[in-house]
């Protein structure tokens, strides 16, 4: 069974890139906004969420907060996929509750694969 991933990303290029990288392995469903993502995730119950942080309107941290606040979805692995990659950002997002963090640009796709694989194990 191919694991199902939800990709929350407002940038079409990035969505395309992620698909190019992951379509071989995962079934990736795109959401362009936080609101759409929350609704879709609640409905489809994916195995993992790749969540961009800088989203229009409802941003990634808020989406995460709401997911964590949802009793059903609270345990869902959420990996931050973000261009906020300045010193300390990783720690910041981990501290916010993301299960993992992958900085954009994705210099090495293996980092992405590893991060996803780590949280799909169980």
């Amino acid at each position: 069974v191919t694991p199902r991933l939800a990709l929350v990303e407002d940038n079409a290029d990035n969505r395309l890139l992620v698909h190019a990288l992951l379509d071989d392995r995962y079934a990736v469903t795109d959401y362009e906004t936080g609101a759409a993502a929350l609704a879709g995730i609640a409905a489809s119950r994916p195995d993992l969420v790749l969540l961009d942080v800088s989203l229009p309107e409802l941003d990634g941290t808020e989406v995460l907060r709401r997911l964590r606040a949802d009793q059903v979805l609270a345990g869902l692995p959420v990996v931050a996929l973000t261009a906020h990659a300045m010193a300390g950002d990783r720690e910041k997002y981990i501290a916010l509750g993301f299960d993992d963090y992958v900085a954009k640009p994705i210099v090495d796709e293996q980092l992405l694969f590893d991060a996803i694989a780590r949280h799909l194990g169980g």
Partner: protein
Amino acid sequence: MLTPRQKTNAGFTVALLAFLVIGAASYAFIDRLVGVSVAVGRLGEVNAALDGLTGRIAEAEARSRAYVLTGDVRQLALHRSIVEQLPGALQRLDSAVADDPARAALARRLGPFLQRRIAHFAATLAAREGGARGPEIAGLVAEGVALTDSLRAVTRLLAVSRERQLGARIAESEIRYGWAPEVILIATLAGLVIVVLAMVAVNRDFAARARAAAALREAEERSRVVFNTVVDGIIAIDEHGVIEAMNPAAERLFGWREAEARGRNVSVLMPEPIAAEHGGYLARYLATGDAHVIGRTREVAGLRRDGTSFTMELALGEVRLEGRRLFTGIVRDVSERRALEAGLRGSEERYRAVVEGLGEGVFVQEASGNIVEANAAAQRILGVSREELVGRHMSEAPWRTLREDGSPLPPEERPATVCLRTGKPVRNAVIGALRPDGRLAWLLVNVRPMTWAPDGSPAAVVSSFADISRRKEAEVAVRENQARLQDFLDAAHDLIVSTGTDGRLQYVNRAWEAALGIRAVDALGRNLFEFLEPACHDRIRAAFRRVVAGETVGDLEATFLAHDGRRVTVLGSSNCRFEEGRPVATRSVFRDVSEIARTQEALKRARDEAERANRAKSAFLANMSHELRTPLNSVIGFAGVLLKNRAGNLRPEDTEFLSRINENGKHLLGLINSILDLSKVEAGKVEVEIGVVELPRVVDEALALVAGQGRPGVRVASEVPASLAPVAGDAGKLKQVVVNLLGNALKFTEAGSVTVRVAADPATGEPLCLEVRDTGIGIPADRQAAIFEAFQQADTSTARRFGGTGLGLTISKTLVELMGYRLEVESEEGRGSVFRVVFRAVSGVPAAAAPAEAPQGAEQEDADLRGGLVLVIDDDADARELLSRQIADLGPRTITAASGGEGLRLARTERPDVVTVDLLMPGLTGWDVVRTMRADPDLRDIPAVVVSVVARERGATVPGAADLLNKPVDREELLTALRRHLRGAARRRAAREK
């Protein structure tokens, strides 16, 4: 010169000679005359003798013839008596011609003729008597007549001669008689002269004798008067000691009448045992001539007739008079004088004792300048011996004199000299005496004349002086103290105000005058509240009441109104001075905080502004980072996807191009990351979180991160001691640095090795440094400093050859320094480089090089440091953090407090070994903190180190500060201060543990 006696003798001698000459001359002359006269007389005599002889012969002839003729017997008797006279007559003739030899011879021839005639007479007469007559007789007669004729012839001869002689004599006499008047005149004149001279001489002699006699009488009279009236008793005794005379004074003295005493032994005037011994003395003297008592004045005891004895002065004299020896004694009753002298001596001794005992120095100086007397205090005060004072001239004095102002005092201005010169007392002169031992004694001198010379000038002056050095020193000390306090007050920037309890200003300092533009003279006496802004009156009044009640009110804020209406806001404290429990005056010290308040306001605005700008900058950076990365994500990502060439339809050059895109995208990303990092660092937005860092782990992780970056054949090694103490730092940042250094080393090393090494103190395992050593291309010496600057690589060609952003070292250095450490480089071109993170320097020697040689003392000190706990009090977060890290870097643990209040609280709970405190803090200032600590028995022992931007300028105003350090803090100064205070703290700890 001849004496009168000699003159007289000479006169008499001359007179005598004159008389001799005249006498001799007269004698000779008269002798001649007498000679002539005698000769004439003798001629008469001869003639008379001749006549007597011839007459008698003729008589005898006549008588004889008459008898012959007559026979008358009477004729015969006559004849015989005449014949008997004939020898006598012849005799007389002889004697008359004795002086004429010729006639004497004739006269002698006459004798025999006369004898024969006389015999013939006898024969004729005898014949007649026999009866012959006539012829026979006639014959005889005729014969007789013939004889007589012969006689006559001879006598005639004699007479002729006589007449001739007589004529010559008379002629001679006539000549002499001619001379006689002159001779007699001359002789008479000479006699007159001599008589006159003799008269003169004799008269003069008589006058002299008369004068001498008069003088003798006068002297006698005088002696008598003296003898009788002299106050001294005079007693004369003979050689047996018997009194011969006593004068009235002696009578009075001994109570004896002279008449009664005369004839008694002088021993009655002597008490026993002298009386008994006196005879012996006298006898011995007379026997031996041992005259030691003669001519000397002695003091002996005398005895009055009433039996009382007394002390007398006795002078003995000896007189030899007409073969007798007399002794005179002159005695004077000195009992009273002795008693008086004894009294005087006692008085003088008392006086001397008083003078000697005086605390004041006293000395007496004569007009000559000689010091004749000096007491013990004088010697003590001047630091000289009596020998150096007494008998010395003032100019020899071994001390030098100074005026009160310290300038030399010339000898002629010394008080004693002045007094001697002017005759006026000198009162309360203050002079300095520089003693022989170098000490300066200040003297209060009084001098007054003591005795006077006949001309009215002082003969001697007495100086008394007290050593007022202590007083003088105290005066100087008080003066200096006052001057010092005044200087402090004048120099203080704080406003210092004192009021009475009624609020009237008693004192304001210059700072107050300057701050308010009001002169003290215009303010003093007026009420403090006249100068305060009405709005603060109630508050100040309340505070004033508390102060007057005895409370010290701190943090007192007030607002003065300046001369020009400016408001001067001050902050300070106030207390009150009490005397005998009553409030006397308030003391207030205010700081003009108007400026500080204004500055703080401006600072706050600036800070807010800066923070706003900073926030904006941070946001901008974050956005830019985000926005730059987003497109790069596509560039790198898609290039990567394409590079996989899943479709297998790419030509090799296409994959090469894609690879270029991918690599450059990554490089661009690296640049962006570094730039953003650097921006953040330089904006101060990088925060290092100091924690415990395990270096082995950091090294391992860093090595893992760079694994595979090196060229083939370049060996990567690590030398990390097994037991290593942790260091303080930010693990992530430190790893970033190590990765960076390793990356650089690998990048620039084409062959050889890259080694990570940690050096540690072998004793404690404490890391000293971490170094990354390579055998790469090295860095030229002149570029070694520049490589830490942004975008500076050693060579522009390097970038092309080795790549890299040129920002890594800049960021690394900044991060290392943020952690309080140091990043240094050693390099030799072509041989390799060493980049070293120095955690702790050891005595200036590079830490890695000689940890083992670290001196024991330093280790001990560092042990002290490590054991210490330092409380850092500073309101400024950055300053606090920085100082805390600097201190921690040196070894001690630190805790921090953001305000004075918090600091004091922490100090009480945590008991740090040292407190550092900022001065300028809102609320409780550094001054307050230190003062509170010093007043708190629990905190009193904790050294308070003032660390402030104004520590140097204002530090002196913090009593009780253990040390003063200026911000920014010099590492060495900090180390020195901490060592000093922590060593003490370590000792205190050790003492407590015991």
